[in-house]
């Protein structure tokens, strides 16, 4: 037995070492230069932990943090996390959390409900300027906890080449569910897979919003999963899947919708604005256009994904931290981030400047008006993961039973 534990420990160590080295390769060399540059003394020394999308984001945040540090006489150390959720969990448990850190919208309620976050949101100047849907996402128990950093929404991405090949024109881009079905028939007739769509609530959920439903009530207190609207949405998705009009990325040998789209295995996909960077990097030859998602029975609907600048309730430098977030969320700074790593500003006052600079992104930005944020309630992660499992089996199970299960589990998690 001891041998087994030793062997397992060795295995674990090997695996860990493997992960570490691969992670180290991924993060690049920019970990080092920042550390010596942060030696100046100041009234506050902020630790900032970010879940970076890549070097571009890390460098842009570092630059902005350095500028703030210089102006305020403080120091600000930006650390990109390898696994933000896990590192934050460890830091909270160790009573030594970073002062400022990214909080993903889907995990926000978990943190807020255990008192890990400082509810500073409305102390940010002009906090009403943040999009209402984003404010709602980061509001818990009636308090705006943190300032949204930026956001993304889902849109319909169309492959121009495949579109032409199937004899379709711009007028054929679907704007309703009916049109989506009919254009899919045309594409399928030419042997082209019409739609690649991710197999989780983060994509399929958009159909629920378009049908007028959602998993919880707007305040996140009631489970509304088994509504007829949600059933209608899942029945529609099921019909797309059964006709093979829609395929999950894995079925197309891809890790996500953008990859399937980039490999030209599907003519359309539903993804957020991050797909631009991915296509540019991995599939630069694919010509595509971006459109708002087709409207359902209750009109337009999409999902928003966002991150906020969380401030630890245990930070020693809350005032300076709020000042730091203030500097990070000005319209100008958000535009600088937008240019650096392609995110959309969370302030409405930056909308015009953004659409002027990135006209192709209008469909994404417009989505903010009617977007639904992630489920805003704690302890929902495993429930939603279970729902994803239901979605993955949608071709062989009935939508009603999937929703019934989701309803039951959501009620248990929300305690009603």
């Amino acid at each position, binding site marked *: 037995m001891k041998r087994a534990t030793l062997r397992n420990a060795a*295995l*674990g160590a*090997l695996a860990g070492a*493997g992960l570490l080295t691969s992670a180290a390769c991924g993060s690049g060399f920019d970990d080092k230069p920042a550390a010596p540059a942060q030696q100046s003394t100041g009234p506050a020394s902020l630790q900032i932990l970010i879940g970076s999308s890549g070097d571009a984001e890390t460098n842009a945040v570092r630059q902005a943090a350095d500028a703030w540090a210089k102006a305020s006489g403080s120091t600000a150390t930006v650390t990109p996390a390898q696994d933000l959720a896990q590192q934050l969990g460890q830091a909270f448990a160790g009573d030594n959390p970073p002062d400022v850190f990214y909080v993903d919208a889907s995990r926000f309620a978990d943190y807020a409900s255990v008192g890990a976050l400082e509810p500073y949101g409305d102390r940010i100047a002009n906090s009403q300027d943040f999009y209402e849907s984003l404010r709602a996402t980061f509001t818990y128990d009636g308090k705006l906890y943190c300032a949204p950093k930026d956001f993304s929404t889902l849109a319909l991405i169309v492959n121009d080449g495949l579109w032409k090949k199937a004899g379709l024109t711009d007028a054929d881009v679907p704007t309703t569910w009916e049109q989506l079905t009919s254009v899919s028939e045309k594409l399928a007739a030419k042997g082209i897979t019409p739609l690649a769509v991710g197999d989780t609530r983060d994509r399929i959920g958009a159909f629920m919003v378009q049908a007028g439903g959602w998993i919880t009530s707007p305040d996140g207190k009631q489970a509304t999963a088994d509504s007829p609207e949600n059933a209608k949405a899942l029945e529609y998705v099921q019909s797309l899947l059964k006709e093979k009009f829609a395929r999950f990325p*894995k079925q197309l*040998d891809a890790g996500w919708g953008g990859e399937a789209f980039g490999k030209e295995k599907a003519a359309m996909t539903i993804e957020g604005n991050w797909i631009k960077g991915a296509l540019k990097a991995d599939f630069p030859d694919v010509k595509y256009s971006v459109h708002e998602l087709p409207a359902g029975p209750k009109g337009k609907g999409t999902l928003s994904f966002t991150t906020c600048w969380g401030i630890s309730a245990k930070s020693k430098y809350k005032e300076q931290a709020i000042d730091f977030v203030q500097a990070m969320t000005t319209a100008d700074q958000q535009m600088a981030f937008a240019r650096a790593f392609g995110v959309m500003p969370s302030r409405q006052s930056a909308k015009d400047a953004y659409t002027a600079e990135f006209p192709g992104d209008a469909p994404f930005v417009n989505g903010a008006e009617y977007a639904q944020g992630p489920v805003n309630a704690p302890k929902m992660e*495993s429930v939603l993961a*279970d729902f994803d*499992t239901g979605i993955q089996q949608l071709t062989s199970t009935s939508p009603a039973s999937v929703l019934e299960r989701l309803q039951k589990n959501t009620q*248990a998690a929300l305690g009603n």
Partner: protein
Amino acid sequence: MADMTAPAGGPVTGARRPRLSAAAREGVAGWLFVAPVVVILGLFMLLPILMALWVSLTEWNGQGSPFRAGVPFVGLDNYARLFTEESLARQDFMTSIRNNFYYVLIVVPAQTVLALGLAVIVNSRLLKGRTFFRAAFFFPSVTSSVAISVVFLFMFANSGAVSGLLNLFGIDGPQWFSDSRGTLHLLLGALGLVDPDAPPAALTDGGPFGLSWWEWLSGPSVAMTTIIMLVVWTTSGTFMLMFLAALQDIPVTLEEASRLDGAGRWQTFRHVTLPLLKPTLFLVLTLGTIATWQVFDQVYVMSQGDPAKTTLTPAYLSYKTAFRNFDYGPGTAISFVLFVIIVVLALVQRWVLRDRDAVPRPGRRTRRGKA
């Protein structure tokens, strides 16, 4: 392997004068020598295990130390919830137990038989280039499991090598990693016993621990079979080495004697070689059972429990519950249940493998005692 090398190195003690102070001094010296290991094991194994045990009895929310006053103590609630309460947590846990059960059921016998077969082959005096084959079979065992998992990801991709190979033979292979269908379901369907799309109500209506009988009877999913193949392939090398060492310990004379007595090849193997391998067999089966119940790396790298939770295992579920959902109490409770499962199974194996030897002995012993 340890018990095989032990007799060779047994030193003759007691040559010195048997004075008490000397014995005491020896004791102190002994403790001094083992102290580093005791301290390290205590600090880095025993203490964390005890700390985790405490966490599993609380509803600690991950804020601050779990050893402060004010951390809600819930007794055995976290454990009870895994077994008695109709909830998602129990369903996930039972699904993971089911998955892992089928996994162990296939991997342990398969890797043991394969390892034994390989060991017999490379031990044979007729085989040319034995060293090469030994190295080749052992190679997967020394390669990082993460690296091998990634290679398998490519091999079993829908346009990967395995699907390509099957296509050569005109077989349209499954979409390995997105296929959540249970193989037992598929088998039952192929035999025409049950229709997998519309299972009989008798099976779907109820079952123990929140899963229906139909769900319990799924067998490993197609996605899980890829992990099974991977693990059988990688671990058989290690176990081959153990069998090989044991085979080389068996005196050739025994084999020759049995041949002279008229035993065939198979009879020699069955009645001479195999009984002599019993301690090694126990070792291999125990190590195999422990490792398979703890499967984590492959799941973490290859599937993360997907598709449809059919590759979810207790070890991975424990990690996910604690570090993804911040339910540290239930997460650690799962790992302790896993611990108990492994200990119980190891004891059962010990009992099963020892029992057959022990049965005829009492008679002999009493006879000897009287004589």
